[in-house]
């Protein structure tokens, strides 16, 4: 305990360190440089996250050169700030205009945007900020206290375990569905199918690319999400004059009241826990966090039918899970030196550029960097709350802008955002294409969310299935023989049964009625 406090003290002293800086005209003044960098990182992250399409990977890559002038600790504090700032900003877009900037924000669109439509955008944004802050605080202490021992979790998870976890994830997708389970399963399968487009990892063969080079790396998540959600939503709003005014007519309260807080408290705690654990897993386990949290909240709710129609728990839980996962995904990077996802891989690059090669020794060799970054996460979360709560009013006012002015702006930002990622014109064409598909899916009563989950999990699932089978030389028993994998599969089966139970019960009721 004393050791932990000592470490945190070192961290905070690094963050609050005053560095003498030459300011022209004023002479050399000591300023808290790291705090400033943390603030800049969070602010930039929030702004960038709000822009649809520009995710943290693109923004960190763009801002990487700016950090060359700073010392490594300051630079990494700023880049980390951009990362979790973008997570915050991403949920703003998801709630206001129904565009998930990232896989982790897909769930937020389900109830968050519905809340906005009911004039509760401010409450949704507020509870997202508060939930994220709580999750951020808990995750910071969590990393500081048990980060190192928990690293082992990342190492227990081999391909077989990962596959079983993904199977469990797909069961979540079934539960996510608002309407027909059959339609949800169909959407999941389409999502999985789409995830197989591109160059095969094991053999290098191209699959379903029609010989087109722009398809050789598969379909990009952000293109798919922006098309199916963003563009499709715009199309739908444009052909339905009634609904498009709902958003701007009623604004309602700006911040959550006591009742909202009471309803959200437990979902936030549960979401933080689930997201935090899944965030440690290698290979982007954090994407499952919000989905898992949503599923659990829906199952625990007294009236699950509210979900998908603006239930505040459906925003509070997943948003907390999302932020907790974003933070704990630093654990494998900081303690093992192994990046669990694309953003962390970029952080590895940033560290190496600054002459620090991440590895198991960072904790002891660069103690001030390690604990400074952890302390900065807490400071950064506080800043995000300070930046975001006052902005809620501003964002909500944005909804008052007439839709005829709003939608061209949203479209333009989508196009700019998607182009900035790979500088490929085909990506822009793609969001238009997926937009049209998304429009017809909505018209036909299919939900895009299960499709996206299937898409995200499909690739991970297929690759890990093949990897596990290659390692076991084709023996399927590997999934059951490995204890952790077996447990996960069992949980998946139980979940599925529980998920299907209400529909079984319902049909039983109907039988009863017919009697």
């Amino acid at each position: 305990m004393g050791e932990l406090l000592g470490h945190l003290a070192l961290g905070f002293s690094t963050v609050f360190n005053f560095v003498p800086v030459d300011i022209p005209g004023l002479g050399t003044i000591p300023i808290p440089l790291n705090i400033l960098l943390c603030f800049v990182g969070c602010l930039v992250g929030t702004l960038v996250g709000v822009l649809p399409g520009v995710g943290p990977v693109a923004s960190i890559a763009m801002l990487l050169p700016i950090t060359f002038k700073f010392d490594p600790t300051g630079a990494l504090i700023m880049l980390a700030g951009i990362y979790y700032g973008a997570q915050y900003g991403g949920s703003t877009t998801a709630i206001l205009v129904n565009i998930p900037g990232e896989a982790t924000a897909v769930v937020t669109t389900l109830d968050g945007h519905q809340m906005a439509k009911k004039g509760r955008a401010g409450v949704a944004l507020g509870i997202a900020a508060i939930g994220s802050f709580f999750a951020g605080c808990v995750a910071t202490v969590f990393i500081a206290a048990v980060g190192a021992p928990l690293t082992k979790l990342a190492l227990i998870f081999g391909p077989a375990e990962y596959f079983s976890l993904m199977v469990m994830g797909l069961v979540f997708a079934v539960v996510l569905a608002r309407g027909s389970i059959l339609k949800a399963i169909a959407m999941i399968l389409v999502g999985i199918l789409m995830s197989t487009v591109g160059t095969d990892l094991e053999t290098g063969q191209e699959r379903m690319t029609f010989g087109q080079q722009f398809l050789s790396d598969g379909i990009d998540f952000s293109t798919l999400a922006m098309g199916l959600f963003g563009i499709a939503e715009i199309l739908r709003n444009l052909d339905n004059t009634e609904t498009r005014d709902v958003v701007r007519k009623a604004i309602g309260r700006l911040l959550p009241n006591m009742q909202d807080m009471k309803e959200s408290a437990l979902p936030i705690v549960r979401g933080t826990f689930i997201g935090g654990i899944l965030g440690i897993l290698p290979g982007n386990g954090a994407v499952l966090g919000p989905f898992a949290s949503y599923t659990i909240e829906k199952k625990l709710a007294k009236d699950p039918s509210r979900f998908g129609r603006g239930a505040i728990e459906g925003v509070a839980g997943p948003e907390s899970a999302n932020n907790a996962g974003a933070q704990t995904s630093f654990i494998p990077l900081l303690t093992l030196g192994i990046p669990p996802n694309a953003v962390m891989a970029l952080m590895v690059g940033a560290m190496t550029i600054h002459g620090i090669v991440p590895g198991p020794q960072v904790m002891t060799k660069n103690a001030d960097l390690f604990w400074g970054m952890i302390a900065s996460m807490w400071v950064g979360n506080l800043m995000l709350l300070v930046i975001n709560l006052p902005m809620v009013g501003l964002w909500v006012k944005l909804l008052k802008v007439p839709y005829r002015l709003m939608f061209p702006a949203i479209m333009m930002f989508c196009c700019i955002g998607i182009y900035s990622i790979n500088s490929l014109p085909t990506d822009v064409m793609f969001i238009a294409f997926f937009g049209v598909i998304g429009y017809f899916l909505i018209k036909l009563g299919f939900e895009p969310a299960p499709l996206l989950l299937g898409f995200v999990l499909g690739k991970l699932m297929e690759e890990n299935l093949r990897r596990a089978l290659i390692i076991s030389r084709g023996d399927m028993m590997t999934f059951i023989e490995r204890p952790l994998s077996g447990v996960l599969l069992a949980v998946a089966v139980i979940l599925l049964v529980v998920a299907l139970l209400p529909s079984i019960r319902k049909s039983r009721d109907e039988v009863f009625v017919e009697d």
Partner: protein
Amino acid sequence: MKRILLAAVAAFAAHAASAQSYPTRPVTMIVPFAAGGPTDVIARIVTEHMSRTLGQQVIIENVGGAGGTVGITRASQAKPDGYTIMMGHMGTHGAAPALYPNLKYDPAKSFAPIGLAAGTPILIVTKKDFPASDLKGFVEYLKTNGAKLNEANAGVGSVSHTTCSLLQSLTQAKFTRVAYRGTGPALNDLVAGQVDFGCDQIVNLVPQIQAGTIKAIAIATPERSPSLPDVPTTKEGGLPEFQVSAWNAIFAPKDTSPEVVKALAGALDKALDDDNVKKRLHELGGTIPDKQGRTPEALQKLVESEVARWTPILKAAGAVAN
């Protein structure tokens, strides 16, 4: 008529002036991989110094995809005016013709080579409780127990996959290849002991080897690396044919004028002589080419020999992407 003539003269004068004082505006360097990877890091270190020599900023643009061939294809089709250049590497300018039959460029013909920037040596590493600890024992174990062993790589066309194909062709061992999405996840499973061994660039591995989470068998360079002085070379270990380094080099599109090539090659040469650049590249475990090795002519030769070297190995490994 007079006005047209004047305009023509002015245009010519402007053109001549710009040719003399290249570069007059920022230069874009296309790095065909995501930001943060080894090639990107090397590009950023080198261009930071080159910008100072050229008097214009060299801006990095990351265009990832298809093992780097998307970015290189685009850069090869850019206007050969010296304002779009690229960082190619062993994969895009050595292995790609074997991996991508529909490749839209020819590594040896579609470019004006500028010079070799830095190489990162390749290491053979194993999980920490692997039965063998030296190269001889490793090769022997590989030959007798190959069928049981799993090798982790970062997917077809990656440096780790390409170089381990060479190991396979040299030892004729029948180990199973497991592909991961990137070196990070592959390393994760190697540290965890889910897979048995792999080949990768030194930059990713030094901290893990020092911490003892994985074992280094040998380094595939003629001399030992200052970052890992205890790791013997493949020459010492009895497999001298396994010589491989993931090289990174700057190219311009074909038909770039000799003056521009000279200016860029000069800036690169100066950057590689800079102590700070040297220090940072050495920290990554990178090797810096000598004066002879960093000329455009030397790079052209390197590309030709690399294409000739990798094509049969990769074809034999059956690794062909469409």
